[in-house]
């Protein structure tokens, strides 16, 4: 050994630096060294997102869809269409199929065609339907996120009996046959909501769907978060924060939570379309809203019967739903990539 390792590193003189005190005395001796502007990770993420064509397309599409939903009444008024107005003039007297282009009813007056039997305008119904679908999906996602993240962090950080108890509780929730419960409890619960809180039938149903979706949706996220927290809290940078004297709150919010945003955002971007689809499924199964109110699921449910003769009635709402879901998924992917600090810089 003998040969002790050579010392290739020329030691720098220290000058009169006083490290013994806690007070900072000296100032940085940056002798004319120009400061390179540091960008925060958020700024870097934004720059990356702006460069990402897929992400920007998704943002535009999602924004448009949100705007369409918000301004649906204005758009419909401008175009002179209504989602609920029955107009049997648009459909044939025999079989009730829409008149016009290949039994779709597409015309200048009704750009996406009309519904068979009733002759209601499809565009108007699609736009109004998106209001309800997005309302349910967005609020469901937010509630699920909050509950899932909070429970996941508590379970992962506490470990011990609390983690076990929460874990078993999640297992129980996950073991419920969600769809059956949704169907079975739909009538009694929505009626209870209507009576107890003097709610409109549709509001009660929307609230019911949001609650049930988030009630059964959070355990999945909680588990992901719990797993991440378990692994993060053992990471050395968390331990080094503990060694510096950081308390639990700081560890949770400054060390662990920022490193959870990527999985949370990705899960949210997957959850939102799932909820949109779930709402469609529920309406399809008849648990959704009261008939004259349009919803994507109800439209799809109706259209299945006319698939052979009027395929446009199925494909137009289907495509719209597909675009919304795809847009959110792609945006989620892009956000995750942009937030990864290890990815290449722009």
């Amino acid at each position: 050994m003998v040969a002790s390792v050579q010392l290739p590193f020329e030691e720098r003189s220290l000058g009169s630096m006083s490290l013994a005190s806690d007070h900072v005395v000296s100032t940085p001796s940056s002798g004319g060294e120009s400061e390179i502007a540091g960008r925060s990770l958020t700024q870097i993420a934004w720059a990356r997102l702006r460069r990402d064509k897929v992400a920007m397309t998704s943002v535009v599409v999602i924004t448009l869809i949100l705007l369409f939903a918000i301004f649906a009444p204005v758009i419909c008024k401008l175009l002179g269409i209504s989602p609920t107005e029955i107009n049997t003039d648009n459909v044939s007297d025999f079989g009730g199929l829409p008149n016009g282009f290949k039994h779709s009813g597409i015309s200048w007056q009704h750009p996406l065609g009309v519904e068979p039997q009733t002759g209601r305008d499809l565009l108007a119904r699609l736009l109004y339907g998106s209001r309800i679908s997005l309302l349910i999906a967005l609020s469901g996602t937010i509630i699920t996120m909050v509950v899932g993240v909070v429970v996941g962090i508590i379970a992962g950080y506490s470990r011990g009996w609390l983690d076990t108890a929460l874990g078993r509780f999640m297992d129980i929730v996950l073991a419920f046959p969600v769809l059956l419960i949704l169907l079975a409890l739909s009538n009694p619960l929505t009626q209870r909501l209507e009576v107890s809180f003097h709610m409109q039938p549709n509001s009660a149903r929307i609230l019911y769907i949001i609650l049930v979706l988030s009630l059964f949706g959070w355990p999945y996220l909680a588990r992901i978060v719990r797993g991440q927290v378990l692994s993060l809290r053992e990471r050395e940078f968390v331990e080094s924060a503990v060694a510096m004297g950081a308390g639990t709150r700081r560890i949770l919010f400054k060390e662990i939570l920022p490193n959870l945003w990527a999985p949370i955002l990705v899960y949210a971007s997957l959850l939102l379309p799932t909820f949109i689809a779930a709402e469609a499924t529920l309406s399809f199964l008849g648990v959704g809203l009261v008939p004259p109110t349009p919803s994507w699921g109800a439209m799809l449910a109706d259209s299945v019967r006319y698939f052979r003769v009027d395929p446009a009635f199925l494909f137009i709402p289907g495509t719209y739903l597909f675009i919304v879901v795809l847009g959110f998924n792609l945006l989620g992917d892009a956000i995750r990539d942009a937030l990864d600090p290890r990815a290449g810089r722009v």
Partner: protein
Amino acid sequence: MPEAPPLLEARDLEVHFPITRGVLLQRNAGAVRAVDGVSLVLERGTTFGLVGESGCGKTTLGRTIVRLYKPTAGAILVDGQDIAAGTRETVQGLPRRLQMIFQDPYASLDPRMTIGACVAEPLRIQRLGSAHERQARVAELLDLVGLRTRDTSSYPHELSGGMRQRVGIARALALSPDIIVADEPVSSLDVSIQAQIVNLLRRLQRDLGLSYLFISHDLSLVRRISDQVAVMYLGRIVESAPPRELYRHPLHPYTVALLSAIPVPNPIIEAQRQRIILTGELPSAANPPSGCRFHTRCWLRTKLGNPEVCTSEDPALSPLAPAHTVACHFASEVDGTPEQESVTRGLGGR
């Protein structure tokens, strides 16, 4: 007038990790005795080297001393004051006395924080200084460890391993501690960088009067930096001596075996040296062997014809020379064996 207490002392420190079985009703099924009765003394301004193979409990010992783990039994005395009881937060000012440098400088830096934020973090946590003062302090620290001020806005992944470890050192120094537990601070770096970091640590020790508990599996490195070296095996210290003494007169068969693994640069001597290859695996710390913990792999025991006392009696750490303690029933037999002679050849002189 009584002698001033040493800066850091561990007395009969035990860290056991319970093994639990069962899902709902967790019951204890024994414990992993990671650290099982370790005593050590670190004097001010010196370096205590701790060596041992992986799994011997040296990292656990280091982390327990900075109170990342709670000791099961025993005392940790800083200036004579016991810090073993209570949680880390309740032990007043502990982070300002004791800091840790971690093995993997990448893992120990938050990937979402800039270097400046990383180094300022201990100051923010301890609520020291204004934002401006902290910034100045960060610049001072970065300069101290040989980083440029413009690295402040970089992220850990943009730096090389050596630079990252410098950041790790800078943030360990931020609170001006007097004791630093360095857990394998250079083992993830390549040799030339290792030398830089070791030199940096030595310079800091000289200039700031730091005391190190230096944990490593690299015997040559520990020798270079330490004033006292302890060899750990399965949660215990089996031999402790100043490096010159330890490398010239190893008295524990395990130390002899470890030293035989250090290569010697002189090829003629190296060819003559004997390598003692330990048979078998490191026994489980959950179920350590009876008597002397090393008896299952001991070459001396085989040589002496398997004396009974090795399996029946746990050897105590007893002084055989000044500052040289050994836990072996037959330590005196080691001295002068061809194995000891062969292994230390080329290691003794410097």
